[in-house]
């Protein structure tokens, strides 16, 4: 059990680190957003799961609630951030055609 916990925790941390690296390395805000929200949240979720499995903490309920809440908010945050990035005029690397052009107002110059 403890081994599983440790593996989960390590894996989770690795995901968080990967997400952070993505935030650094990816080329535009929208891409970075994918990394930050998805990988980051999964990493955290694994960490919590691992922590619960260590058996040293008697807060399974709290831990699960945290997990659920993270998972509920994750896509929401992703969507809202994505739109905000788009609208605030972020440069979009390598986007061919933009079907949103004309549908959603967007700042010509990136807010910086």
């Amino acid at each position, binding site marked *: 059990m403890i081994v599983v916990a440790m593996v989960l925790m390590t894996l989770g941390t690795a995901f968080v680190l990967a997400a952070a690296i993505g935030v650094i390395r990816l080329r535009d805000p929208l891409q970075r957003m994918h990394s930050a929200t998805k990988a980051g949240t999964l990493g955290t979720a694994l960490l*919590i799961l691992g*922590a619960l499995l260590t058996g040293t903490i008697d*807060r399974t309920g709290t831990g699960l609630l945290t997990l659920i809440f993270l998972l509920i908010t994750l896509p929401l945050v992703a969507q809202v951030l994505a739109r905000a990035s788009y609208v605030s005029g972020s440069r979009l690397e390598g986007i061919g055609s933009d079907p949103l052009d004309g549908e959603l107002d967007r700042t010509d110059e990136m807010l910086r």
Partner: protein
Amino acid sequence: MTLTILSAVLGLVLAIALVLAGWRMVRGPGFADRVIALDMLTAIAVGFAALTAVTTGRGAFLDIALGIALINFVATLAFAAFLERKRREP
């Protein structure tokens, strides 16, 4: 014991992740980049809380994890709202 050492190592990894996210927050270049990096911090903080719960053996820190999860996404949403609304101003 292994658990403690592992936690310390993982903590350091999380701290490195924090440094990276912080770097992006500070460097930008766009507002959106900074906000996205900020959202990354939530994950890191929750991770830290979970780790601390393990090292201290205190459930209180999981409460904190839940608290952070509950609280921080509002900040992200507020930032997003700011980016959306600020756009039309010069």
